């Protein structure tokens, strides 16, 4: 039955091949670039860099803001993910489970943070902070701004999840005399879990990637990974140094991905709830 469900696989396999190559090739090249010693320039006519050393790695580890940036970003992002999730839950519950006048309008309002270009948001948010004398609380300011910016994602995803909670399951649980907690566990949790995981994952990634707010509000005490990348890979890029950063920053992400893939697997409703 599964076999019959598959759509023609040839284009999908080609796509997979492209995706794999597109991951393997650039990162192999990045490794080579990162090993170029300043004493020998690597030109396209040679297959490998003429002089290989770990000089760039040492230089970047010691002289770039890599260390604080990693610490900051990987503290900020998980916190932002949890805060955003908590703020979004009640709204998503209302949107997913109730019908009320103006619901479509509310859904549109929820998209507002996406519609405003983040640089505009960043500049005026920082100006508000200064006027209120709160500018020194950079971490909390960025956290708040990230939570607001990423609420639309969380609300959309969780609304979908709440919509997918099956009313017959809720009713059945209630009819069988389950307590509210029990009802949540049986009827809500299986449908919500993938949404919650997706929300945490997406907000985490968005927060790790966010540049405008982190830069305008965060400098100079608060360097994040994107502000670091922007300065290294932007207009004055130096390929070798940029390659070192790209590689170092890929490592935590790969580990993270493995963990999340596990989460998502265990959150698969078709597997965990025996539904369908």
């Amino acid at each position: 039955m599964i076999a019959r469900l598959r759509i023609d696989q040839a284009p999908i396999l080609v796509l997979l091949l492209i995706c794999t190559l597109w991951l393997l090739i650039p990162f192999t090249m990045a490794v080579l670039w990162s090993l170029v010693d300043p004493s020998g320039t690597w030109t396209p006519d040679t297959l490998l860099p003429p002089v290989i050393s770990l000089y760039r790695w040492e230089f970047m580890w010691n002289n770039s803001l890599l260390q604080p940036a990693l610490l900051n970003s990987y503290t900020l992002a998980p916190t932002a993910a949890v805060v955003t999730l908590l703020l979004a839950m009640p709204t998503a519950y209302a949107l997913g489970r109730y019908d009320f006048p103006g619901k479509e309008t509310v859904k549109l309002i929820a998209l507002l943070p996406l519609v405003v270009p983040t640089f505009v948001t960043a500049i005026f948010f920082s100006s508000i902070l200064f006027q209120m004398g709160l500018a020194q609380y950079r971490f909390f300011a960025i956290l708040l701004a990230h939570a607001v910016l990423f609420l639309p994602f969380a609300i959309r995803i969780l609304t979908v999840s709440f919509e997918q909670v099956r009313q017959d399951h809720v009713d059945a649980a209630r009819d069988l005399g389950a307590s509210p907690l029990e009802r949540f566990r049986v009827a809500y949790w299986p449908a919500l879990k993938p949404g919650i995981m997706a929300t945490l994952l997406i907000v985490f990634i968005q927060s790790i990637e966010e540049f405008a707010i982190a830069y305008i509000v965060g400098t100079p005490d608060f360097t994040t990974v994107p502000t670091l990348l922007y300065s290294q890979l932007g207009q004055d890029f130096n390929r070798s140094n940029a390659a070192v950063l790209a590689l170092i920053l890929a490592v935590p992400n790969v580990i993270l991905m493995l963990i999340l893939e596990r989460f998502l697997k265990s959150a698969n409703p078709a597997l965990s709830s025996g539904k369908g």
Partner: protein
Amino acid sequence: MTLGRAAYILMLLSPGIGLIVVFIGAVVYIAVAQSFGYYNLIGESGFSWSFWIEGIDRKSYLRAVRYSLYVGLTSAFLSVALAYPLALWLRKPFPGSMTISAILKAPLLVHGIVAAFLFLNVISYHGILNQMMVWLGIFDEPRRLQNDEHAIGLIFLQVWKNMPFALLLLTGAVQAISDDVLNAAQDLGAGAWQRFLTVIAPLTVSAMQASLIIIFIGALADFTFQTTIGPTNERSLAQYMTFMKDRGRWNDAAVVGVTLMALSLAGSVLLAVVSRLAFRGRRK
């Protein structure tokens, strides 16, 4: 709806929607006011239509609007169109599906700036792609592929970066469709395309809308990809706005900024309505 129920709904909405309204409201207010000449950082402030009248009249303005819409819509449609078959394929686990899913989702965790930088190295004049094409005899000599004028490289990267996002949303939605429903459709003799139109799409329309809209808005307001790998004979709206801002022309930048907001909003509504009309109507 009773008063108590209304209060209950409002209470539920306040931490999410309430916060958004207060926070974004202030920012939007100032941006709009600036486009009409208020809140000048330097010089006099006061109401004026002139920034809009002159701004819309500029050739670069319309070019930027057209170009950004092209990038936004193309990226959104292509990403979702690619994500659907993948989501359906990965609906049930099979040997190797974990690995495939991980490879497909990897772009979520590669920074956009890093991806653009690596991509540039691959397609550069002496990059590995050109060398391979020459070696294979497909190209006679290396070709200039970077910053191509049709934004193919940029859209490739947009799709590469955003497709996993759509995949993530759609996988959840597709998995929630029960096998009974799909089987029933099949028993009635529906083909793959028919099944998609009549069963899968209508049942996943929420996730489809969410993916389309979120990818559209992101690509519409793109700055990093455009400035590194985008065509050099086009400017995106975000790039155009930054161009103005960097020259201290805040009011002109605000005109572009407000345009960007308006297009995001209008485009999102359009995408939401179209996808709903196209698929909700077929339900039942």
